[in-house]
């Protein structure tokens, strides 16, 4: 007999925290309240496609994309080093990589505040060696830095896990057939690690495009991202309907990206996270 009752707590959990909120989100985004009447409407979505909001969306996507690219450029070589190192080193390195994640996300981001401030550690050092202070905080640079810092483990780990699974004999076969290390990388290692790269990209891009904490703290309100916009609608403006509509648009965007990557991964056979 299959113990289907074991799934009940999970079903309940899903119902309470996913299905019902999603239902509410859809309900709010398509309705409008005037006094006691509730009416169906498209206006929230129409409003979102006004230039001012589209600009926010574009900025969010741009910053998230830049962060993802930087994460990939740093993360791929890091994953390769991790994979190439001996077992003894490997565990230490993975621990060091994961260690910051044991700390609260907010705390980690606050730490950057003290580093980047006008009177922070980095600027003090610059002054001490006779250079000018830099404006490191409350700009796009700081936001990107925060994103890269917070999300880079999600790029390194899936790439590492795929690299780790590549059969050593495939690399030897490439060398055997005359490929030097560069050609071996381009023709064998990189194509075989693509599922990990795709997982990494999704896992970095998704939280980066929806974050509001990083832009709030490190952007100092100068840089409004889509996440900030949603937060404002709910907590400051109190326009739950518009906030829900923006959230729904974001969900659709994310589903589309995930659809693309998972389709590609199925063609590539395995190795990814979904």
């Amino acid at each position, binding site marked *: 007999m299959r113990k289907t009752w074991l799934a009940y707590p999970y079903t309940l959990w899903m119902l309470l925290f996913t299905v019902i909120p999603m239902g509410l989100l859809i309900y709010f985004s398509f309705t409008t309240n005037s006094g006691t009447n509730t009416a169906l409407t498209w206006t929230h979505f129409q409003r979102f496609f006004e230039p001012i909001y589209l600009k926010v969306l574009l900025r969010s996507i741009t910053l998230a994309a830049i962060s993802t690219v930087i994460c990939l450029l740093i993360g791929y070589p890091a994953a390769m080093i991790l994979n190439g190192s001996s077992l003894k080193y490997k565990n230490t390195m993975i621990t060091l990589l994961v260690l910051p994640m044991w700390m609260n996300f907010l705390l980690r981001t606050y730490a950057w505040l003290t580093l980047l401030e006008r009177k922070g550690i980095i600027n003090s050092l610059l002054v001490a060696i006779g250079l000018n202070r830099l404006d490191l905080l409350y700009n796009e640079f700081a936001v990107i830095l925060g994103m890269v810092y917070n999300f880079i483990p999600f790029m390194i780990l899936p790439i590492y896990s795929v690299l780790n699974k590549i*059969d050593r*004999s*495939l690399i*030897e*076969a*490439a*060398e*055997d*057939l*005359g*490929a*030097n290390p560069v*050609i071996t990388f381009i*023709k*064998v290692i990189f*194509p*075989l690690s693509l599922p990990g790269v795709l997982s990494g990209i999704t896992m970095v891009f998704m939280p980066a495009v929806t974050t509001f904490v990083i832009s709030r703290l490190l952007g100092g309100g100068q840089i409004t991202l889509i996440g900030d916009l949603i937060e404002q609608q709910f907590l400051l403006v109190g326009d739950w309907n518009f906030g829900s509509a923006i959230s729904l648009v974001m969900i659709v965007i994310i589903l589309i990206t995930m659809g693309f990557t998972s389709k590609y991964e199925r063609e*590539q*056979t395995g190795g990814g996270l979904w």
Partner: protein
Amino acid sequence: MADHLINLINVSKEYNGTKAIKNINLYVRKNEFITLLGPSGCGKTTTLRIIGGFEYPTDGQVLFEGTDLTVLPPYRRKINTVFQKYALFPHMNVFENIAFGLKIKKIEPKIIAEKVGRILELVCLSGYEKRSINSLSGGQQQRIAIARALVNEPEILLLDEPLGALDLQLRKDMQLELKAMQQRLGITFIYVTHDQEEALTMSDTIVVMNKGQIQQIGTPVDIYNEPKNAFVAGFIGESNIVSGIMLEDFLVEFAGCKVPCSDQGFATNEPVDVVIRPEDLKIVDETEGIFKGSVKYVTFKGVHYEMIVEAHGMDWMIHSTRLRPAGMKVGLKVDPYDIHIMKKVAANA
């Protein structure tokens, strides 16, 4: 030296202080089919990997046509390998796999297509160019792996237990095909296996290895008929191996009997290993035999019966086409020239 394609000179390899191979000296002639044979962990794969360039020896030298290539990386050697688990690139189709080496050499696409077509014909897989690797059976993948190596026209082809994953019938077919291919193409094959039958079937020369050392080098016939020590005798074919004492030239004592033999040159009363092939022990009437005993088990093996006869406190294996039922009292006889006397080897004791 003139026709020696590969020379291994005093080659040793250590892994974390333990020696995988010790002082290997070996030469391979042009157009030779040479097999490294031994149980797992005997160092045969390590030796092959050193020739391929995937491992560098801790000590010693590897010469290729007289020039040193001890520390040359694999991609600069005129050697190709067929890997144990084929190691075909899963993200490429059959054509791309086979063309991999040729593309790196920047050969014209037209010629590449031609060569791939011809090599696919050779391995009987014409028309498979566009197939994905995962859609092929084990035997087909095996052929593609061989084609991918051969298309580069190497001087030497290394094969690391290439038939290990195939079923018996396919393995036997491939053995003959590989041998035929080697003779037709005139390429030197260095083949690694733990299957003595495979080695005997295909090789011009067999190198028997154990515990990182070469035990014997010779033709299949030599190795089978004149094994150098008890290990080789035990590993190649089946053997009865018993301890004995060489009383004088042409007389050996074992199993409590003094038996005439054809060997000489041992010290008086030197302890030796006595090796008798199961097909050389003859079952006769109880009164005529050197040894007397009774049949313990009988197994039907197809061409012959394998009988275990208990005599003089030990079990003897006998292959014969004539069945004696279990429990029957019998005598055992052996001709002097079928008794092989070998010096005791401490390492194998």
